[in-house]
């Protein structure tokens, strides 16, 4: 089969087709752009028009972050009906599972299932049964599960009698009661059970050489759960039970059980708003689904922290070799401050929930606190005594006013240029915590460590740190070794960007667009 329309054609006024992305018994799906430049998916509904349109109209105003949005239904000059949909740039789950023939990690499967459950829950709350859940209709975009092809009937009227859909692949996810013609939303729960089984093992529970054989297995055979991780066995037994009355009453119950076995009960969001409006705090780009699993986080975090140690050591050494003018005494404090600063960026960025605005006052205040902590650490590392209750006997030289060092500074002469007469009013303690605290308060450090940032390494971020460091060093009386403060934060900006994982943020990945199989 070939696509009817080619790139550049405009069958529907205002929409220019770029390429075809899906062909099926129901029609053709194209990637198109509007006159204003918005990217959309256009679905030309060629058959079962009445059934399709009825289903689509029911879903037109449905909005949910885990559902592919339907924008409009339009008719062209020839009377053809077109469904205008959200363009999803991610991969379908089928492609992902094809790359993982033995299934994905249980944590990942559980994570994806949460998104899937939210979408199905939203549909069920609106009285809609999806009826054709399968990996090809589920997409993963920027870590978010998106369910498509809902509201479309898929010749289900026929299938109720024939016991099969037009698309043989769908049979694998078909609940036994569909053959009786008497079914409800329980069929979606069964299909989700099959999907979970497939995500965990890489295979569907029932396979056969013909649709009839597969359907017969759905009706009579028990799924082989020996390959499934043991904590999922009870869940799958209940989800895949033949009698719909014995299955989970709702999809959220299934999701809750999955979260419980993954020891992540907090990950369940029992009722995302199912209104027609998106919740305001849902950002356009979410790095990962709301509940990142603990082990994944731990693996990422420990890996990042390890790399940060290596990178900090390497860059500190490089800097000292190139600019140190043979003075190696600054190598160790530069290394430790670079490491501490980069950790203070990497850890909160990793732990900060990806929901909501990235820049907020609580976040800034946390960074300010961390910056003050680094300032105190720098003081300690430089050998200053801190005014602690248990340290009363020591000379609290951190409260002494800053004074110019006895020996002329070595290293980069640019810092020598800024040397001014000693300030006799501001204590050293204040200088340190002010410099590091303000540097962490003023700059948006987390941007350098976010998963979805513009580029892997941004020289602008480094220059921003250098600019503000230079400015503050100029405004503040100074640190003992101003070069150390300047260099360590500059290197931290580099280390954070290099060690933090990065994924391309752009929503358009034109090579992997497979929106719907119609």
């Amino acid at each position, binding site marked *: 089969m070939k696509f009817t329309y080619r790139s550049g054609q405009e069958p529907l006024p205002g929409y220019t087709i770029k390429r075809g992305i899906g062909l099926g018994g129901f029609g053709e799906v194209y990637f198109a752009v509007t006159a204003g430049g918005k990217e959309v998916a256009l679905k030309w509904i060629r058959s079962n028009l009445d059934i399709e349109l009825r289903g689509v109209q029911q879903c037109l105003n449905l909005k949910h972050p885990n559902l592919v949005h339907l924008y409009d239904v339009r008719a062209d000059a020839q009377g053809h009906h077109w469904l205008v949909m959200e363009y999803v740039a991610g991969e379908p789950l089928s492609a992902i599972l094809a790359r993982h023939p033995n299934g994905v*990690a*249980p*944590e990942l499967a559980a994570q994806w299932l949460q998104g899937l459950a939210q979408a199905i829950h939203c549909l069920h709350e609106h009285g809609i049964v999806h009826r054709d859940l399968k990996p090809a209709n589920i997409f993963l975009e920027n870590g978010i599960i998106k369910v498509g092809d809902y509201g479309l009937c898929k010749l289900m009227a026929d299938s109720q009698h024939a016991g099969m859909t037009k698309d043989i692949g769908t049979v694998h996810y078909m609940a036994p009661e569909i053959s009786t013609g008497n079914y409800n939303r329980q069929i979606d729960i069964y299909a989700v059970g099959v999907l979970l089984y497939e995500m965990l093992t890489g295979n569907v529970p029932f396979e056969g050489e013909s649709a009839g054989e597969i359907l017969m297995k759905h009706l009579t055979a028990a799924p082989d759960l020996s390959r499934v*991780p043991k904590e999922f066995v009870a869940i799958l037994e209940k989800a895949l039970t033949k009698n719909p009355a014995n299955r989970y009453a709702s999809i959220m119950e299934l999701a809750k059980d999955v979260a419980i076995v993954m020891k992540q009960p907090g990950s369940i969001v029992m009722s995302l708003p199912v209104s027609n409006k998106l919740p305001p705090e849902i950002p356009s780009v979410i790095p990962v689904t709301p509940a990142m699993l603990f*082990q994944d986080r*731990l*693996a990422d975090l*420990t*890996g990042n*922290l*390890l790399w940060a*140690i290596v990178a900090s050591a390497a860059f500190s050494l490089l800097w000292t070799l190139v600019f140190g003018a043979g003075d190696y005494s600054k190598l*160790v*404090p530069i290394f*430790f401050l670079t*490491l501490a600063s980069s950790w203070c960026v990497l850890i909160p960025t990793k732990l900060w929930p990806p929901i909501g605005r990235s820049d907020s006052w609580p976040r*800034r205040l946390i960074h300010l606190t961390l910056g003050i902590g680094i300032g105190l650490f720098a003081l*300690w*590392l*430089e*050998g*200053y*005594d801190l005014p602690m209750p248990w340290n009363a006997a020591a*000379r*609290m*030289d951190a*409260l*002494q*006013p800053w*004074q110019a060092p*006895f020996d002329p500074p070595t290293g980069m002469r640019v810092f020598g240029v800024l040397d001014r007469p000693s300030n*006799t*009013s*501001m*204590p050293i303690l*204040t200088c340190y915590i*002010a410099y590091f*605290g*303000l540097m962490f*308060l*003023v*700059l948006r450090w987390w941007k350098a460590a976010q998963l979805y940032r513009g580029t892997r390494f941004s020289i602008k971020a480094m220059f921003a740190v250098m600019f*503000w460091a230079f*400015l*503050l060093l100029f*405004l*503040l009386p100074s640190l003992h070794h101003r070069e150390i403060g300047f260099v360590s934060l500059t290197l931290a900006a580099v280390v954070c960007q290099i060690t933090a994982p990065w994924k391309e943020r752009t929503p358009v990945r034109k090579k992997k667009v497979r929106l719907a199989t119609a």
Partner: protein
Amino acid sequence: MKQMFLTICGLVLLWAIAGASGAQTNVPALPEAMKPREVKAFGVDATKAREIAVNQATILVGKLLEENHYTSFRPDAKYVRENLLADDGKPGPDVRNDLVGDEPLKQWIVTFKDSNWWQDVVRRDYEAQRVQRAAVRQSAAKRFVVALLVLLAIANAYVRINRLTRSRYARWLQVICVGVASVLLAIALLAFAMYFLAGR
């Protein structure tokens, strides 16, 4: 704009608080009675006498520091000559000593500055103490980071292997990880004990 606003607010606040605090250098003054005024020294010639006078002044300042429990900084003759003495000094009356010989010994008198050089000396002692403390702390921080590096590597290896094996051997992996960490901890403690004993 937000950044500029935050910076200005932060700095104004700092200057308002810290600037008004009027922190003063906390160096106890040397009692007038202990304050050295001049040092007399003798030598076979004026040059030698002057050299000995500066050395004696250096020793005197060192003793003063020690008496006041400042043990980290020891001034050298160059520092004393350039910073503590008022000038090159002046020759004093020659002294005849039969034990030395027939030639009279030349006398040289160096005078300490009237300014509060004691404060500078003590500040340098503070600085020397700080440098010593910094070396100790940086050494401790190095050990801490090495230990942390090992623990992170163990945790990372555990999570990755556990994920690779789909938690089938989670218990065994936990036992191995705790075992490895315990062995490393024991080695570290043993090394510390040996270092401590060797030091004694």
